[in-house]
């Protein structure tokens, strides 16, 4: 069962969105997040929401899959909504329940903020849903390259991330194995108070760490044997290419942002 865990929540597909250059997708995600914060009123939501809707429809990622990813923040979302709804006062009173009152301004702010949060989460999940983890690290490496001169270890960061991704399933499998081995020897992970249960993790973590260090040592040797000498003079099998698809997506994104900015100036 532990083998079925999907990495980075990638939703396999071959859509227009899936095939976009990861560098574009990372930048577009950042731009979109900024755009969410320059929105001023309901009209600006038309732009950002329809942009997001278009991305979701084109990517063919089912809405139910996206919603499942939203679950963890439902509580935070509900809290911010309710706090804003009742605490912000201003404008006409819409609802009066004695000690709690809902005002027009309060309702507006609450809806605004909740939508903003949902969109924020959606855009970042769409990035990971439609981009393979390996492409994401390639994109990050490529984007960070210009900052190499000021000491950002772009290649090393990307290599670390891709090795981490590679070893997640291996270490999960190993954890599973160690847990079973300790259970077979009478370890108890389920009963007792929180301190007792935390202590129960020690016999899992120690073997896991020792094994991880051993693996790291062997991997380093294997990488050296395959002539790994850092990022300099290295070529790539899949070089990232900016295609007409990315051009179209860029134009659409720029138009969306431009519309937002113009609308803000006009207000």
């Amino acid at each position, binding site marked *: 069962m532990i083998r079925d865990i999907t990495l980075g929540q990638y939703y396999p597909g071959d859509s227009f969105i899936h095939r976009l250059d990861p560098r574009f997708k990372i930048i577009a995600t950042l731009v979109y997040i900024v755009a969410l914060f320059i929105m001023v009123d309901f009209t600006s939501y038309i732009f950002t929401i329809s942009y997001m809707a278009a991305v979701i429809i084109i990517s063919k990622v089912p809405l139910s899959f996206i919603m499942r990813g939203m679950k963890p923040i439902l509580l935070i979302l509900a809290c911010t909504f309710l706090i804003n709804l009742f605490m912000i006062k201003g404008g006409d009173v819409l609802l009066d329940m004695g000690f709690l009152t809902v005002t027009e301004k309060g309702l507006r702010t609450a809806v605004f903020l909740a939508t903003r949060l949902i969109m924020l989460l959606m855009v970042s999940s769409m990035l990971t849903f439609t981009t393979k983890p390996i492409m994401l690290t390639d994109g990050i490496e490529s984007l960070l390259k210009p900052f190499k001169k000021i000491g950002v270890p772009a290649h090393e960061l990307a290599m670390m991330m891709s090795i981490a991704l590679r070893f997640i399933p291996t270490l999960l499998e190993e954890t599973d194995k160690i847990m079973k081995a300790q259970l077979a020897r009478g370890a108890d992970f389920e009963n007792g108070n929180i301190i007792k249960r935390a202590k129960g993790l020690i016999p899992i973590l120690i073997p896991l760490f020792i094994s991880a260090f051993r693996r790291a040592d062997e991997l380093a040797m294997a990488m050296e044997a395959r*002539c790994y000498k850092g990022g300099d003079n290295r070529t790539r099998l899949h070089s990232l290419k900016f295609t007409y698809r990315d051009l179209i997506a860029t134009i659409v994104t720029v138009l969306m942002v431009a519309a937002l900015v113009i609308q803000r100036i006009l207000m």
Partner: protein
Amino acid sequence: MESIIRIQDVTFEYKRTGSETSAILALDGISLDIEKGSFTAIIGVNGSGKSTLAKNMNGLMLPTGGKVYVNGMDTADESGIWDVRQTIGMVFQNPDNQMVSAVVEDDIAFGPENLGVDPEEIRRRVDMSLQAVGMYDFRKKAPHMLSGGQKQRIAIAGVVAMLPECIVFDEPTAMLDPQGRREVLDIVEKLNKESGKTIVLITHFMDEVANADRIVVMDGGKIVMDGKPQEIFVRSDELKKLGLDVPFAAELACRLRQRGIDIPENIILMDELADHIKEHC
């Protein structure tokens, strides 16, 4: 024959942490020439120094005494170390711990990428290597979805893609089930016979080395026997003293010989033995 690896009077000491005086001598005056295109098996029990010797062959470890030359290049010379490692590829024991990428074909590409090969050429080499180990259909898969034998074949492909002249296998089958072992050994033999790669196979399984051109037996950091499989296998008593097993067919032939049944000493494989018995007894 020209030799590709020349090991001259090599010693290797492991410093024991915490004490300055005592060190473990893993290699004790080893001299060995590996001929181009040959299939050499190095065999020995755990702690005999065979893995240390392997890591000295491509400069992963440098001898504390003596010299190792690869195609005439000294492995201790840092300027030539990447040439040495490209010439001598190496496959390790644990297939999981030698894969860097979460996608099979990206892992194969890792070596050529490090060498700075052009993307189109990398593509060609990746496809060629995957076909050579019969794993082309798995090129888009994640390594953790494969069996041990398949993973080890991917690790071999990753080395083949660097176009080495020689491949050193450091106990490649130790963690595999019998089927995985067979798959890996078939590829090792194929790389030697069909692609003309020089092979050094390090193992402690005697039955894996019957097809080698030459067997080197190590014990306590020294070479104790060196010769053709037929010459080594008849010395079964000495091998047993070293803690090594003799392949069943060789053992059987030896026992039959002791009982006065005439079986030539060059018979070491099961098929040969069966044929001989069918014809002559």
